[in-house]
């Protein structure tokens, strides 16, 4: 049993690298996912992940499956979608979700068209769904670097982000520069999605961002509690998912995301806060 759990990591350095990278991402992406969820922007991470595809595809055309070029391309693509959508909706008075949907659909179609013209199917699978073998030293450095930067920025941005999520009107009245923090936050989300692509693939990168946060919401009623639990769930999902990927011979992206999905299913079913069970169980009422 222990051999089945720890053996693969002891034996294969690529699995160890993937594990370290995913654990680093768990620490940084899960709190970001919580803020996305609290801002009712749960789908924005997905939008950004699709938005990076043309950038990644262009980089892939130029430099192949090299982490550095993929990261630069993805970062440029993601920031372009996020900023273009935000600026467009402000300039035209439209809704941000509408402009996001429009820009990411165009970006996704463009990216898929680009990739399909050149790559062979193994590489396309790795790009879209991730591969344990994708986490080379450069990718590991990228993932850990992004996690470090994210934690540093979050430490400073925590209070303004909570305020901007909770009461944007008050933030505006008090001159808390909510718009600026929002941009910083979106940049962090893009960074994390790009860093996750190497291990999880572009289509699954958001899984580690959103699922742990959404699951943690059912276990705590306080922002800090949700953030800590989300990190824990993300880390556990990374470990279990990599094992699943190894034993069942699955791409790492779906394996990790399915594990996090299982945590979500359990949470939404029996968690103490707003879960199906908590809603159904009729508790004996108190005297006052």
């Amino acid at each position, binding site marked *: 049993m222990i051999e089945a759990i720890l053996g693969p990591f002891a034996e294969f350095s690529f699995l160890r690298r993937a594990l370290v990278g995913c654990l680093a991402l768990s620490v940084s992406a899960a709190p970001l996912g919580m803020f996305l969820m609290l801002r009712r922007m749960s789908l924005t991470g997905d939008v950004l992940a699709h938005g990076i595809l043309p950038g990644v595809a262009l980089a892939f055309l130029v430099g192949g499956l090299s982490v550095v070029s993929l990261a630069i391309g993805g970062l440029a693509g993601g920031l372009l979608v996020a900023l273009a959508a935000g600026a467009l909706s402000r300039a035209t008075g439209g809704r941000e979700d509408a402009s996001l949907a429009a820009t990411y659909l165009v970006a996704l179609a463009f990216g898929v068209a680009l990739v399909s013209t050149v790559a062979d199917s193994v590489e396309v699978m790795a790009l879209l769904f991730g591969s344990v073998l994708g986490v080379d030293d450069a990718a590991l450095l990228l993932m850990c670097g992004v996690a470090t930067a994210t934690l540093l920025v979050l430490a400073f941005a925590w209070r303004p982000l909570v305020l901007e999520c*909770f009461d*944007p*009107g*008050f933030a505006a*009245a008090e001159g808390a520069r909510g718009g600026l923090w929002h941009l910083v936050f979106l940049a962090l989300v893009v960074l994390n999605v790009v860093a996750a692509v190497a291990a999880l693939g572009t289509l699954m990168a958001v899984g580690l961002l959103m699922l742990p946060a959404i699951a943690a919401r059912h276990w705590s*009623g*306080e922002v800090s509690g949700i953030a800590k639990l989300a990190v824990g769930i993300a880390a556990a999902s990374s470990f279990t998912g990599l094992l699943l990927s190894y034993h069942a011979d699955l791409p790492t992206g779906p394996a990790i995301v399915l594990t996090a999905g299982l945590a979500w299913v359990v949470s939404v079913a029996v968690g103490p806060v707003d879960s199906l069970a908590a809603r159904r169980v009729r508790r004996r009422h108190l005297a006052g």
Partner: protein
Amino acid sequence: MTAPAIRIENLTVAHGGHPAVHHISGSVAAGSLTAIVGPNGAGKTTLLRAIAGLHPPSGGRVSLAGRVALLPQAATLDRGFPICCRDVVLLGLWQRVGAFAPMPPGSGERAEEALAAVGLAGFGRRPVGSLSAGQFQRLLFARLLLQDAPILLLDEPFTAVDARTAADLLAIIRRWHGEGRTILAVLHDLDLVRAEFPEALLLAREPIAWGPTEQVLSAANRLRARMMAEAWDDTAGPCARDAA
């Protein structure tokens, strides 16, 4: 006569070009307690938001002698957000603490005192989602207490609260008045305005009357305010008064 706390010079605030507040001039004396009354659509909320700097004017200017705290009519905050009452009250320290600085010592006690002052003693750890509408309005008053601003703008502070809550909140307004703060409140209950507010501004997009409450709320003035055309004039050309 001391310097005014709020000076409004020929202020016009427009929504899509149509003026919601049209050519208002006047000043609010420091330490005064003023009610803003007028029909729906008279520009009361727009005026408060313009004074708070949340709505850029399309003409004229507002100058303030101090920090402003605004109690919005429809709070934008997310009542389902996982945050407890004490932390909401502590947000009132934002001007002094900002994004990075640690909370000054004693902040927690100040928040508890503010909660007690609005009748929410013991609510500190309760999530905001569990409060009733009236308790919620009390909570926002507690946050105003910590904001400690010399100028207070209250937009319909007693809407959707019961008589006892209204009386408690009114007592806090009186306390602020006694401390020499300048208060502007949008209200609809004219009896309350007559009883509690020495000054009044009757607004119907343009100021109908501004001064001592009894004179402002005369039958003739109220009739004039009711005559205000609520609809925009889609054929209106540029306002000629700007040239003057």
